[in-house]
C-alpha cells in the first residue's frame, strides 16, 4: 500500500488518537532529565576479534560492568559501525560457564569418555606444575618435545608463541593459520606477489564478483561492507559465486550456484571468454602487436605476438590452459548456465578497471584449491583492476617495532633443539606449505595431531595451547581426541571448558580478548590500515590472566625458580619501561611495557617513524583513549611493476611458483612433476605454473554417499565460540535457511521429496570419516544433489547451552568437523574444508 505524505498527516489527525491524561513515563523522564542531568556515558576503546576483520570498538561501562558495544568512531576502517558479533561478546565475558580459576585434572586417565575430575588450584601451583614438567624436558635434553599451539592471537603473540619455545629450546610454535585462509593468500601471492588479505575499494567499484565471498555476513570487512553495500548496489553489479544462497547472494544481481569445488573451472572459463572477446585490459596487460585479437578458442597464440605491459605470461597462460576452457565446457562442470557465465564475465570485464574479483576461503580452502584461488585472483590482473581505484589493493604501511632478539638468551640446548624439525610436517615432500614461496614456510596445523599419534618426527611430551580448540575446529576431530589423549602433559589456556580442555592436565582461565586483555592488532578495511588496541575495559569477575603475556611471565618466574632463568631474563631485559628504563617487576608491567614498546612508532613523537605513515596521537595516554591508530589512505598504483614476484609483474605464468616448486623438488631430490603427484594435484609440466582447472577431490563414492556436503559460516559465529550464548541461538535464523535454536541440514526439496524426508526429521549424516546428527530443513537455496550445514555447533563441551549434555559429553547439533576428512591443499598447507571435500549419505533416524 502506498501513501502520500499528506495522507499520513490525515491519518495522524483524523484517526481516533487516544490522548492520555496520565503523563506517563515519557513526561516523567523529561522532567527527571531536567532535574537530574544524565551523567555522560563512559565508553572505552578496545578491539573485537569475533572474525578476522578485527574492528575497533567501544564498550560502555556502568559500575565497572560492560553493558553495550558500538564501533569506535576514531577508526577509519570500520568508522563507528559494527556487525552483530561484538554485541554477542557480552554473553561470552559474562558467561556463567566461564572458568574462574586454574583447574587441575585429578583423573589420570584421558579420553572422550573419561571425566577429567577437575579441581580448582591456585595460579602458583598451576604454573609450578607446568614448570616442573618443562624442567624435566630440559634435564633429559628433550626441550624440542615441548609445543606451543596458538589459536586466536593479538600481535603480542611473539612473547608466547616464538620467544617462549625458542628460548626454552623448541621449534614447535604451531599456529592455526592453516585452518583459516592460507590457500586464499596463495592465490594472491603467486600472481601478485602478495601473501595477505587484500583490501577492496568498495566505495568506487562498479562490479563485485564474489568467490564464496559473503562480506555482509562473514570474513572479511563485514561492518564496512554492510555500511556501503546499499550505495554499492546502486552503482555496481553484484555477482556472487556460492553453492548456497548466502545473504550477499540473496541481495545480488546474479547468484552463480556453483557445484562445490568447481570454482577453478568457472574462473578459467571466464578468463577464456574475456580473452576471446577482447575485453582484457590493454592498459595493464598490453595488446597484440598488430592490435588484432588472436585469442581464438582452441588456437595457440605465438608468445612473440603479444606485447605485454604490467603482467607476464598471458600468452603462455592462454596456450597452456585457457584456450580450450570455453564457457560451454565450464557450464557442464559448474552447473552454471553458459549464458550466465558469459554475462558475468563480460560485465566484470566491461566495468574494469573498477572491478573486484574477491577470493575468499570458500573458493580457496579446497583440495587443489590453491590453483582455484590463483585463477579467480588472476581475473583482477586480466582486467587491470589490481592496485587500482575501484579494484583490489594491498596494504598501507604500519610501523611497529620488531620483537627484540632472543638469540643471546638461548643456551646450547635451546640453540640446538630449536632448530630441530617442527612436528607439523611442513616442508616435507607431501606438504610443501609454500608460504611466501618458501618450502615449509607455512604451518600445516592439522598434521600436528598425526605427528603426535605417530611420534613422527618425535614424541611430543608437553604442549600448551591458547585460545584454540583443535578437537572441535580441525577436520577429522577423532584424530585430535586421540592425539590429546596420548599427550603426556597438556595445558589449555581458554575462557571455557572446551573440547580440547577435556583432555588437559591443567586448564588456565584466559582473559577475554575484547574486555579483559591488553594487546594490539593490525588490520585494514576501507582503504586504511589501522592498529587497534585490545584494552581491559571492565573489572574481571574471575581470576583470569592475559594469555600472551601474563601467563608466559608467570611461567618464566617458575622456570627461574627451578634454575632456568633465561626466559625471565629475556622478558625483563628486553622490555624495560620506555621512560624510566626500569625492568618490569610483574606480568602486568611486562604486558604494558611490551605493548608500549611494540606500538611506540605510533604514539611516541620522538620515534623516527612517528607521523610518517598516519595518525599523530599526542602520546601513550591519548593513543590508549582513542584506542586506534590509522594509516594514511591507500595510494593506488605503487606496486605496479614492483610486485614481489620473480618478474616484478603480475604473473599469469608464475615464475614465482615455478621457482618455489623447483626449490622444494630439489630439496627432496625429485622432479616438480613428482612433487605434484605426491601432493595430490593433477597438473604436470608447465601447467603447474599457471592458474588452471583441477578436478575437485571428494571422499566417498557416489553409490554409497550420494550427496555432496558443503559447509558455510555464520554471521553470528565469533569463530567457534558463540554456541554458549542464548543470543546466538535466538537469532540463528539471520543466516539464510537456518532456524533459531537449531542446527539444520539444508536440503533441496526435490531431494527431500524423493527420499521421503520432511523438514524437522532427525537425520544421520555420514561420510567415510564420521557421522553427525541434525534436523533436516527443506530449503531452496541449495542445489539438488548437495546438502549444507553451518559451522559452529555440535559442541559436546564448552558449556551447558553449547552442549546438549555437558556431563555426558553429548553434542547439541552437529560438528561438521566430525564428518570432514583431514585433507589439504598441500601446496599452501591449508586444511581443505570447502569444495565439497566429502560426499555424505543421509538417513532418517
Amino acid at each position, binding site marked *: 500500500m502506498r501513501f502520500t505524505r499528506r495522507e499520513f498527516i490525515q*491519518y495522524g489527525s483524523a484517526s481516533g488518537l487516544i490522548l492520555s491524561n496520565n503523563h506517563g513515563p515519557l513526561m516523567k523522564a*523529561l522532567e527527571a532529565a531536567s532535574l537530574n542531568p544524565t551523567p555522560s556515558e563512559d565508553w572505552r576503546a578496545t578491539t573485537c576479534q569475533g572474525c578476522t576483520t578485527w574492528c575497533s570498538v567501544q564498550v560502555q561501562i556502568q559500575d565497572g560492568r560492560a553493558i553495550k558495544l558500538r564501533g569506535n568512531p576514531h577508526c577509519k576502517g570500520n568508522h563507528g559501525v559494527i556487525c552483530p558479533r561484538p554485541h554477542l561478546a557480552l554473553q561470552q565475558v559474562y558467561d556463567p560457564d566461564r572458568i574462574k580459576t586454574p583447574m587441575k585434572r585429578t583423573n589420570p586417565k584421558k579420553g572422550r569418555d573419561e571425566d577429567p575430575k577437575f579441581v580448582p588450584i591456585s595460579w602458583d601451583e598451576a604454573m609450578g606444575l607446568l614448570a616442573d614438567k618443562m624442567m624435566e624436558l630440559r634435564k633429559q635434553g628433550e626441550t624440542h618435545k615441548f609445543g606451543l599451539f596458538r589459536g586466536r592471537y593479538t600481535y603480542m603473540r611473539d612473547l608466547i608463541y616464538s620467544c617462549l619455545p625458542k628460548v626454552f629450546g623448541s621449534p614447535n610454535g604451531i599456529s592455526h593459520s592453516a585452518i583459516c585462509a592460507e590457500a586464499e593468500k596463495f592465490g594472491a601471492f603467486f600472481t601478485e606477489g602478495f601473501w595477505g588479505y587484500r583490501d577492496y575499494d568498495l566505495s568506487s567499484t562498479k562490479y563485485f564478483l564474489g568467490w564464496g565471498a559473503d562480506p555482509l555476513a562473514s570474513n572479511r570487512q563485514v561492518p564496512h561492507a554492510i555500511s556501503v553495500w546499499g550505495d554499492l548496489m546502486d552503482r555496481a553489479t553484484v555477482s556472487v559465486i556460492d553453492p548456497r544462497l548466502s545473504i550477499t547472494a540473496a541481495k545480488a544481481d546474479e*547468484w552463480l550456484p556453483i557445484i562445490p569445488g568447481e570454482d577453478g573451472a568457472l574462473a578459467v572459463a571466464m578468463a577464456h571468454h574475456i580473452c576471446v572477446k577482447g575485453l582484457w585490459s590493454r592498459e595493464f596487460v598490453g595488446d597484440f602487436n598488430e592490435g588484432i585479437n588472436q585469442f581464438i578458442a582452441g588456437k595457440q597464440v605465438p608468445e612473440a605476438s603479444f606485447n605485454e605491459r604490467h603482467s607476464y605470461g598471458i600468452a603462455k597462460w592462454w596456450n597452456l590452459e585457457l584456450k580450450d576452457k570455453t564457457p560451454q565446457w565450464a557450464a557442464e562442470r559448474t552447473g552454471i548456465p553458459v549464458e550466465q557465465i558469459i554475462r558475468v564475465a563480460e560485465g566484470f570485464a566491461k566495468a574494469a578497471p573498477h572491478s573486484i574479483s574477491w577470493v575468499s576461503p570458500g573458493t580457496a580452502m579446497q583440495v587443489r584449491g590453491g590453483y582455484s584461488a590463483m585463477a579467480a585472483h588472476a581475473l583482477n590482473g586480466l582486467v587491470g583492476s589490481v592496485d587500482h581505484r575501484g579494484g583490489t589493493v594491498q596494504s598501507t604501511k604500519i610501523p611497529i617495532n620488531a620483537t627484540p632478539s632472543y638469540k643471546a638468551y638461548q643456551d646450547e640446548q635451546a640453540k640446538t633443539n630449536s632448530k630441530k624439525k617442527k612436528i607439523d610436517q611442513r616442508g616435507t615432500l607431501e606438504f610443501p606449505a609454500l608460504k611466501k614461496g618458501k618450502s615449509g614456510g607455512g604451518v600445516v596445523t592439522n598434521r600436528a595431531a598425526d605427528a603426535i599419534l605417530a611420534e613422527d618426527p618425535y614424541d611430543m611430551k608437553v604442549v600448551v595451547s591458547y585460545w584454540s580448540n583443535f578437537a572441535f575446529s580441525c577436520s577429522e576431530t577423532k584424530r585430535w581426541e586421540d592425539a590429546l589423549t596420548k599427550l603426556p602433559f597438556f595445558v589449555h589456556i581458554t575462557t571455557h571448558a572446551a573440547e580440547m580442555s577435556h583432555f588437559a592436565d591443567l586448564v588456565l582461565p584466559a582473559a577475554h580478548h575484547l574486555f579483559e586483555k591488553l594487546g594490539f592488532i593490525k588490520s585494514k578495511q576501507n582503504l586504511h590500515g589501522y592498529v587497534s588496541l585490545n584494552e581491559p575495559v571492565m573489572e574481571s569477575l574471575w581470576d583470569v590472566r592475559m594469555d600472551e603475556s601474563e601467563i608466559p611471565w608467570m611461567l618464566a618466574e617458575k622456570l627461574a625458580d627451578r634454575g632456568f632463568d633465561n626466559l625471565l631474563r629475556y622478558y625483563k631485559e628486553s622490555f624495560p619501561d620506555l621512560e624510566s628504563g626500569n625492568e618490569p617487576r610483574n606480568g602486568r608491567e611486562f604486558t604494558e611495557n611490551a605493548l608500549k614498546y611494540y606500538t611506540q612508532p605510533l604514539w611516541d613523537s620522538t620515534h623516527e617513524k612517528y607521523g610518517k605513515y598516519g595518525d599523530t596521537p599526542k602520546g601513550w595516554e591519548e593513543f590508549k583513549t582513542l584506542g586506534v591508530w590509522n594509516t594514511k589512505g591507500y595510494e593506488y598504483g605503487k606496486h605496479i611493476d614492483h610486485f614481489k614476484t620473480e618478474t616484478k609483474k603480475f604473473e599469469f605464468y608464475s615464475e614465482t611458483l615455478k621457482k618455489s616448486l623447483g626449490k622444494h623438488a630439489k630439496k627432496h631430490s625429485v622432479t616438480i612433476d613428482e612433487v605434484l603427484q605426491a601432493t595430490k594435484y593433477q597438473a604436470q609440466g608447465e601447467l603447474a605454473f599457471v592458474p588452471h582447472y583441477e578436478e575437485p577431490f571428494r571422499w566417498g563414492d557416489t553409490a554409497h554417499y550420494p550427496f555432496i556436503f558443503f559447509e558455510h559460516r555464520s554471521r553470528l559465529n565469533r569463530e567457534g565460540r558463540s554456541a554458549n550464548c542464548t543470543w546466538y541461538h535466538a537469532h540463528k535464523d539471520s543466516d539464510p535457511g537456518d532456524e533459531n535454536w537449531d542446527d539444520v541440514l539444508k536440503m533441496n526439496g526435490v531431494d527431500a521429496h524423493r527420499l521421503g524426508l520432511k523438514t524437522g526429521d532427525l537425520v544421520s549424516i555420514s561420510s567415510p570419516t564420521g557421522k553427525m546428527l541434525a534436523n533436516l530443513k527443506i530449503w531452496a537455496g541449495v542445489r539438488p544433489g548437495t546438502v549444507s550445514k553451518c559451522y559452529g555447533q555440535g559442541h559436546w563441551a564448552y558449556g551447558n547451552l553449547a552442549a546438549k549434555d555437558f556431563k555426558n559429553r553429548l553434542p547439541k547439533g552437529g560438528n561438521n568437523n566430525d564428518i570432514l576428512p583431514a585433507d589439504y591443499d598441500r601446496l599452501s598447507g591449508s586444511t581443505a574444508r570447502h569444495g565439497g571435500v566429502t560426499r555424505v549419505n543421509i538417513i532418517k533416524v
Partner: protein
Amino acid sequence: MKPQRLAMVIDLHRCVGCSACDIACKTENNVPADMHWSNHIIETSGTFPKVHHRYIPTLCNHCENAPCVKACPTKAMHKAPNGLTLHNTDDCIGCKACQLACPYGAIFFNERTPHQEYQDKEPLIQGCTASGSELTDKTRKPIPYYNKERANTYDGVRPKGVVEKCTLCDHRLAQGLEPWCVASCPASARTVGDINDPDSEVSQLLEKYPPKVLNPEKGTLPHVFYIREF
C-alpha cells in the same frame, strides 16, 4: 506547529538482515533472550536456482490506531503525546489482552521471572566454573550486562506477570538520543523522527520513496514505514 509524531523508516535496500538491531536492542533494554522487541520476518521463495530470500526487520509499529491500547482494561498500555505506544507495569494486570489484540506479535508476556539463566546456582564444574547466580551476586544486578538507563522510564527488567514491548527507546529519545537499534544498525537502514516536521529526515525519505506498512488492511495505522526492497 503540529505536535510531534514520531515514526520510523526502514530502508530495506540498505538492510542486510544481520539482526544487529535485534541483539543490540536486548543489550539496551535488558530484554530476555526469547523476547524480540526488535524482530524480523524472513521469507525464502522460488525454486532453485531462481530463489529469493528477504529479511524484513520488525518492531512495535507504534500504531496510530493501536489495538493493544484499545484492548487494555487498565490503560497500562497507552499512547504518548508524541505518538509512541507505551506500557506501564504498575497498572498492568497481565491479562494479555494486548498481546492477543496485536496483529504483529510485538508484545511479550513474562510467564516466569525473566533471565532465569542468571539465577541458576549449579556450576558446570564444581569450584571451577561460575554460575548464573554467582554472576548476579557479584554484579548485584539481575543480569551482568544490565543497563540501568532503561529504568529511567520503564522497569529496568520487567517482572513476572506483566507484558513488555518496544518503547522506541523512549528513555533515549528523552535525552535527544536515537533508539539503540537505529544507532546500532551498521547499514544506516533505520531512521526515527517526527513525520509532522516536513524537514525531518523521515519526512524526506517518505517523500522520496513510496512507503509500505505491515498489514495495512488491519487498520492499525502503523508508524513503521518500509521503503525500497531488500
